[in-house]
């Protein structure tokens, strides 16, 4: 495998998508993910692909949809308000069953907000802001390396389920450089491969088959219901097959943190500090935010006094944590918002206060 290189998060993400087989990218500038379109604009035309600077995020998601209807692998990225503009499109893609890998390098919101890192798009990502009954799997990496691996693997996942897959990173992960090992370069699918693997794709019928139609409108409610129920079966399969998480030091833990992405790294250090202070603490790190790793919570030890959702948002993940905990433990929240990031010691202090009360 290739050697370790030092790469900026955003550039590594772009390269991971290319290596995963994506040769088509449509994007609109927005901080803190501009290095991705910039990288793609330099790179894609050298590997037989295409980069288009879209006129807006709305156009970008629809370009991506169009490109993906042909069966080719497509990758796009944006940041918080840009993702908000894509909600109609994401609902459309899910409904039309079109695979796509989409990355949100999120910032502090709401509205224009700021451009420092945040996790306040948790609800936007996991609950969906498009209309109707659909779901999008959401994966949240904590390091540049993990992000690279997740993006790379998201390409076949999107194909497998014929559904968009979202990666939720934050501005910090996008902007920083960390050592990373890049996975092997995959060739783009050929038309022949597409015709074989994706019989629904729009490749021109060539008078050799019935015409293909990719659609989202089903005017007859009974047909739409059937369509939705079939999709729900798919979502159920995702719930069974796509759960990813890490559970660490749960045995004998007094406190169990739940944290993802950048926040989990800070919590990691806080746990060390807590240990030094004689407090046993563990962590569940959801990697898949949807489906949420409910099963991980069955591993929590009887010794645990409190489960703490640690977020860069105002308790957005805590709702899912509560569903998963099912009333077995009290659930508390430690958060920063608006682009602020806590230090490990800050988490330690807040944890101690919580422990005094529970």
């Amino acid at each position: 495998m290739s050697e370790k290189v030092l790469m900026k998060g955003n550039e590594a993400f772009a390269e991971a998508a290319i290596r995963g087989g994506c040769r088509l990218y449509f994007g609109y500038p927005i901080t803190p993910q501009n290095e991705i379109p910039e990288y793609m604009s330099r790179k894609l035309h050298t590997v037989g692909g295409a980069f288009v600077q879209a006129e807006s995020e709305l156009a970008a998601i629809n370009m991506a949809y169009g490109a993906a209807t042909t069966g080719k692998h497509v990758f796009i990225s944006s940041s918080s308000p840009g993702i908000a503009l894509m909600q109609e499109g994401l609902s459309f893609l899910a409904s039309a069953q079109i695979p796509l890998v989409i990355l949100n390098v999120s910032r502090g919101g709401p509205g224009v907000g700021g451009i420092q890192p945040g996790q306040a798009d948790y609800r936007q990502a996991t609950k969906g802001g498009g209309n109707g009954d659909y779901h999008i799997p959401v994966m949240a990496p904590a390091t540049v390396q993990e992000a690279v691996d997740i993006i790379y693997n998201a390409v076949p996942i999107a194909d497998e389920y014929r559904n968009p897959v979202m990666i939720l990173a934050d501005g910090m992960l996008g902007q920083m450089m960390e050592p990373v090992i890049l996975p092997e370069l995959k060739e783009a699918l050929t038309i022949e491969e597409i015709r074989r693997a994706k019989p629904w794709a729009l490749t021109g019928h060539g008078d050799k088959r019935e015409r293909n139609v990719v659609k989202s409108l089903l005017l007859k409610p009974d047909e739409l219901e059937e369509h939705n129920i079939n999709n729900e079966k798919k979502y159920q399969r995702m719930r069974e097959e796509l759960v990813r998480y890490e559970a660490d030091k749960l045995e004998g833990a007094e406190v169990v943190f739940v944290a993802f992405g950048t926040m989990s790294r800070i919590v990691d250090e806080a746990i060390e500090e807590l240990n030094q202070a004689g407090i046993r603490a563990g962590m569940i790190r959801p990697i898949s935010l949807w489906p949420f790793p409910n099963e991980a919570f069955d591993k929590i030890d009887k010794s645990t006094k409190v489960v703490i959702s640690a977020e860069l948002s105002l308790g957005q993940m805590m709702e899912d944590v509560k569903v998963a905990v099912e009333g077995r433990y009290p659930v508390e929240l430690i958060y920063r918002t608006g682009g602020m990031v806590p230090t490990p010691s800050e988490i330690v202090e807040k944890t101690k206060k919580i422990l005094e009360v529970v």
Partner: protein
Amino acid sequence: MATHKLIIAGFGGQGVLLTGQIIAYAGMMEGKEVTWMPSYGPEMRGGTANCTVIVSDKKISSPVINEATTVVAMNLPSLVKFESMVEPGGKIFINSSLIGEKPKRDDVEVYSIKANEIAADLNNAKVANMVMLGAVVDKTGIVKRESVERVLEKLFTGNKADLIALNKQALRAWNK
């Protein structure tokens, strides 16, 4: 010290981002944990640039720091902006070619390096950042000078290879 947290700041053209990357790269080659984090967004306006580098023996949590162990100011606005971020007992490196002023802090170690003039003496104004880097490496031990030299060898290949010698020379020039 197990964890070095360094801020380098200057004008856009002074190569401060690259300098930070070289340190991170060198750290990585030494088997250490490293992160490099630039300022981004509208902060950039005004033509200034800065980045934060962490080199550590242990896993790095937040790549954004509240306090630095070392600040390197390549121009005056950078000194004004970052002086207060050094931890007590930390180090401030000043490019005294461009900065007449002294820092107001008295609880830190200050190193004044005439980086531009020294670079000019080497007949290449562009290596001022390397001159400064030499000083930083030698005084903080954030990474080894040899590691930096190995990075330079990887960085300058092909028809840029002849720059290696010059840069190595610059690295050593600050206290000549």
